[in-house]
C-alpha cells in the first residue's frame, strides 16, 4: 500500500504533466493539420482530371509535395525542418517546437485521408447538383463534405491516433508527453512501473479515440 502511495505521490505530477503535454500537442497540431489537410484534400479532388477545377499542374504539384513529405519518417522530419520550425514559432524545443513538425507530418496524411473519403462520394450526386445550377463552392460544402462525413470522421480518427504515436518522438526536442515519459523513466531509468502506467494510459486514449470516431461515423452514416 505504501509503495503505491509513494509511487502516486512521486510520479503522479509528472504523469499528469505528460498527459497535458500530449493533449496539447495532439489537439493543436490536429487543428492546424485539418485546417491545412482538408482543403488540400478538397483541392486534390477538384483539380483531378475531369472535375470542376481541373488543373494538371496544381494536381501534380500537390501530389508530389504530399508524397515527398510523407516519405520522410517523422523522427527525421523533426530535425530536418529545424530552421523552418525556428522561423515559424521562434523556437525549436518544447511543445511549441514539436507542434510545427507534427503539423508538417500530419497535414499531408490528412490530405490523403480526406481525398480518399471524398472519392467515395457518388459522382452522380455532384452531377445532379451541377445540373440544378448549384455553385461549385456550395457543392463542395453541401454535397461533397456532407456526404463524406462518415469517412472523414474515420479518417480523422486514424490521423489523431497516429499523431498520438508521433508525439512520443517529440520528446527528442524536449516537448515531453506520455511517450517521452515512458522512454525516459521506463527505459533510461529502469522504472518499469512508470512505463506500465503510461502505456496503459496510451492504450485507454487510443481505445477511447477509436470508439468516439466509430460512434460519430455511425451517427452520420444513414445507409
Amino acid at each position: 500500500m505504501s509503495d503505491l502511495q509513494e509511487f502516486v505521490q512521486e510520479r503522479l505530477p509528472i504523469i499528469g504533466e505528460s498527459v497535458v503535454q500530449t493533449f496539447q500537442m495532439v489537439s493543436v497540431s490536429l487543428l492546424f493539420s485539418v485546417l491545412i489537410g482538408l482543403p488540400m484534400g478538397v483541392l486534390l479532388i477538384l483539380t483531378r482530371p475531369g472535375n470542376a477545377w481541373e488543373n494538371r499542374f496544381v494536381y501534380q504539384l500537390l501530389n508530389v509535395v504530399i508524397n515527398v513529405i510523407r516519405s520522410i519518417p517523422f523522427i527525421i522530419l523533426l530535425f530536418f525542418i529545424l530552421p523552418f520550425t525556428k522561423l515559424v514559432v521562434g523556437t525549436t524545443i518544447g511543445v511549441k517546437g514539436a507542434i510545427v513538425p507534427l503539423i508538417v507530418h500530419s497535414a499531408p496524411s490528412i490530405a490523403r485521408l480526406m481525398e480518399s473519403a471524398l472519392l467515395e462520394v457518388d459522382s452522380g450526386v455532384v452531377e445532379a447538383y451541377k445540373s440544378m445550377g448549384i455553385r461549385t463552392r456550395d457543392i463542395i460544402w453541401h454535397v461533397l463534405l456532407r456526404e463524406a462525413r462518415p469517412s472523414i470522421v474515420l479518417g480523422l480518427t486514424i490521423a489523431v491516433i497516429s499523431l498520438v504515436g508521433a508525439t512520443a518522438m517529440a520528446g527528442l526536442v524536449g516537448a515531453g508527453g506520455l511517450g517521452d515519459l515512458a522512454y525516459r523513466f521506463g527505459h533510461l531509468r529502469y522504472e518499469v512501473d512508470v512505463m506500465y502506467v503510461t502505456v496503459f494510459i496510451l492504450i485507454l486514449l487510443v481505445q477511447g479515440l477509436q470508439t468516439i470516431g466509430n460512434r460519430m461515423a455511425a451517427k452520420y452514416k444513414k445507409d
Partner: protein
Amino acid sequence: MEKGEIFGVIGYSGAGKSTLIRCVNLLETPTSGTVEINGTDVTRLPEHELLAIRRKIGMIFQGFHLLKTATVYDNIAIPLRLMDVGQQEIDKRVGKYLSIVGLEDKHDAYPSQLSGGQKQRVAIARALAQEPELLLSDEATSALDPETTESILELLLTINQELGITILLITHEMNVIQKICDRVAVMEKGEVIEQGRTVDIFTNARHSTTKRFVNGTYHRELPPSLLRELRETGPVVRLSFVGESTGKPVLAAVSRKFDVSPNILAGGIIQLKQEKIGSLVVHLQGEGEETKKAIAFLEEQGVNVEEMERGHV
C-alpha cells in the same frame, strides 16, 4: 423540340444519346454546333447565366443521385436553399411536390429506407421543386422493374399534362417511347437516323435499327423455316392499322374480292400515348397476281403493308 411535348430519344448503348441530353444543360460541352434554349445559344453563356438556365431545367437520372445522408425533406429542400428560396416557400414546395409524387408520408425517411421507385419519385420531386420549364430524363426507368417503370411513366405523363412541363427523355426501351412520347428520334453512332411522330415511327419505320426497336415491342418473330415454307404459297405481310382503318373489316373484303385466303399468324394492339395501333401478321395464300392486287387494295384502305422477308422484319 416543342414546348409542352414529351420527346423521346432512343438508341442502343453507345449511340450518343446520353451525351446528347447532357449537352442540353451543358454537363458536357459540345465540340461543335450550338444548343439553343428559347432562342438563346447556351454554349456561349457566362457562368452565372448558365447557372440561371440550369435552374430552369430539371434532370432525373438512372441512378437517382440523392444525398444518402439527408432525409427526403432535406433532399428536396437543400438545393432550394442553395438557390436562395425562402424557408416558407421551401416548405410549401416540398409539401406540394411530395404529394404529387405520392410520398407525403416520407418526409423524414432516408433514401436507404426507400425502394428504387420511391427514390426516383423523390428525385422527380426534387427536380420539380425547382419549378423547371423542361425536365430531362436520363434513362430514369432503366434501373426499375417493369411495374415500377409503368408507374413512373404514368407520373411523368401526369407531370407533362398537368404541370405543362416539357420533357426530353432518353431510353433504350421502346415501351417508354410507346407509352408517353409524342415524338421520337432514333440515334445510332452519334447521329439521329430517323425522327418523327411516335405513331409514324411505329407504323412506318424506315431505318433497320428503328424497325428492330419497333418489332421488339410486338414480341413477334416467326421461325425462319415456317416463313420460308409459307412464302412458297404466297407473301407474308405485316399490316398496321392506325385510326380509321382500325374499324374496317378489310381482311374479309380481301377474301371476297380476290382469289386470296388470308391466314392470320399473329396480332396485337399497341396503345401509344395518343392513339392505338393494330398490327397483324398475315399469310396471303394465293397466286402472285391476285396477292399483289390484294396488297394494293389494302394500301388503298389506309392499311400499312410491309412484306416480311426474313424471320422478323
